[in-house]
């Protein structure tokens, strides 16, 4: 097991290196002339001479790989430059907003898992009966529902019509209800379907037949054998939900004026604040990759087959 973890950890560095290469590549391809935007930001008229000076100053006259290594060296030390708008170090700003987003994402993930397990289970156990039809119908509606619309429906119902929940801002737990619902709807429905499908698959497996043949009570057969095996793939799903939740967070923060990093990044895009944008994608991707790594390790821990397969290669 330790070997597996070490091996996966060793893979983290090359993955993040490639990520940084792609981000640098997109920036250099799309940014146009950084010297030009630098001059515009500093209110210097872009004469040929000023451009040449700015290029030398920014190191743009050096070969591309040197520029990349410089950039990478700074990034590794946490130096992503200063925001064009606030002039503050970018990483500090991102870390200021990040906890708010992580709270929402964590709560959504928890909500997804806590609700989808019983829903998926009931749906599978009562297959083709009323609870199953209800769950399947609802999850079908849920996966077709755009989250940026669902958020406003919630506002309309719970804030405007009923007046139960605050429509925006950050505060007590009540402020979190609607953002969390908005963000988790999609992953909740997908997870419910996944658990139902897994349970139904497993119920026809041979080991279940054997467990029944041994005379085990149904509760043990379902509770211990079917359930545990059906939940293992859900761990993998968590890794993918995190990616979806980050996207959902940007939308939910925008709808509910939640002071998170997604909303900050959107405003940075409006301002064409490149240092903020690159730091945002690098931080989010690092979290995403790390989460997937943890997921893989949990998976290997629970399912020895993966461990051995990985070790045998």
């Amino acid at each position: 097991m330790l070997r597996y973890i070490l091996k996966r950890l060793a893979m983290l560095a090359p993955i993040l290196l490639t990520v940084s290469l792609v981000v640098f590549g997109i920036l250099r391809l799309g940014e146009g002339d950084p010297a030009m935007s630098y001059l515009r930001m500093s209110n210097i008229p872009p004469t040929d001479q000023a451009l040449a000076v700015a290029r030398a100053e920014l190191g743009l006259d050096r070969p591309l790989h040197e520029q990349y290594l410089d950039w990478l060296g700074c990034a590794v030390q946490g130096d992503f430059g200063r925001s064009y708008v606030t002039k503050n170090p970018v990483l500090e700003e991102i870390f200021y907003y990040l906890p708010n987003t992580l709270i929402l994402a964590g709560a959504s993930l928890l909500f997804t898992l806590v609700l989808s397990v019983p829903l998926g289970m009931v749906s599978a156990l009562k297959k083709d009966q009323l609870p199953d039809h209800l769950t399947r119908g609802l999850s079908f509606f849920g996966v077709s529902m755009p989250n940026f619309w669902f958020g406003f429906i919630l506002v309309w119902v719970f804030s405007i019509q009923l007046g139960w929940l605050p429509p925006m801002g950050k505060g007590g737990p009540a402020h979190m209800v609607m953002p969390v619902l908005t963000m988790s709807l999609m992953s909740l429905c997908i997870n419910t379907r996944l658990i139902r499908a897994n349970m139904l698959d497993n119920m026809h497996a041979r080991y279940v037949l054997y467990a029944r043949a041994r005379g085990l009570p149904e509760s043990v057969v379902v509770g211990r054998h079917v359930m545990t095996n059906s939940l293992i793939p859900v761990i993998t799903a968590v890794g993918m939900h995190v990616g979806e939740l980050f996207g959902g967070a940007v939308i939910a923060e925008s709808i509910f004026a939640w002071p998170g990093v997604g909303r900050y990044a959107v405003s940075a895009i409006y301002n064409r604040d490149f240092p903020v944008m690159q730091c945002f994608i690098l931080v989010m991707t690092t979290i995403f990759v790390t989460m997937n790594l943890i997921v893989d390790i949990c998976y290997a821990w629970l399912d020895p087959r993966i461990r051995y397969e990985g070790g045998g290669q």
Partner: protein
Amino acid sequence: MTVNGLKRHLRRGLVAFSILVVFILAVSALFAPLLSTHDPTEVTLANKFAEPGLDHPLGCDHLGRDVLSRLLHGARTSLGAVAVIAGVILLLGFAVGATAGYAGGVLDSTLMRICDVFLTFPTFILAMFMIGVLGTGIVNVILAVSLTHWAWYARIIRSLVLALKNREHVLAARVSGTGRFMTMVRHILPPVFAQLAILATLDIGHMMMHVSGLSFLGLGVRPPTPEWGVMIADARQYVWTHPELIMYPGLAIFVTVMAFNLLGDALRDALDPHALEHTATDHARRETASSSESLQEAY
């Protein structure tokens, strides 16, 4: 009537409904200028928040623009963008996936590592970043969403090709002297296409939500171009006074996504050669140790 009979009827009804919706959408997208009664971008402040009436069946928005005309033209923008995205993704995914699966060796592993890089990023965040760098506008949205989605397709197509490559009928074709290229065209492509049609239909809703979601954030299609996500963003300030303005475009997206999901499910039931799906699924499972096939499909 038996329960099964009832279910079959319900299922048929839903499929008919989804086909109808897709047909209506296609018609309104193609003939939006003929069907709409007003210019979707024409501002008439006298008509600000006009009530629904004969002249404006769904009323007017905060700038006095006709809501129905904007919805019809919005279908054109959203569906048009999604159609182009789907085309780009399928072409790119197909070129990379089929080459990798059929050629194998170094080429295969190189191409798959490139896919891995794209799969490392959270999709929506990467799309946001690309638009941030490239700038907003419909062309950049199409580019960003296509580039963030193609890698899944390349992987799935590769595993389909791998599963088919060593099937008896393909081997028989090779043994009897059919060239590599012709074998590909005759025996491998057709079943892969059937599978792709299903996947693409199921995914159209997802792509549409990305396009409209980006537009909603102000990072996609630029106003005043009518687009459903833009319409929701426009109406958000007026949710307290005129919630119906947010309901129309949202409902349009919801019904469209639902129709394509239903259609995708129906296509799967109708077209899916079951055995193929299973071998491909097994392959994909082994290939992507950290992701389950059904989930890929769902996202």
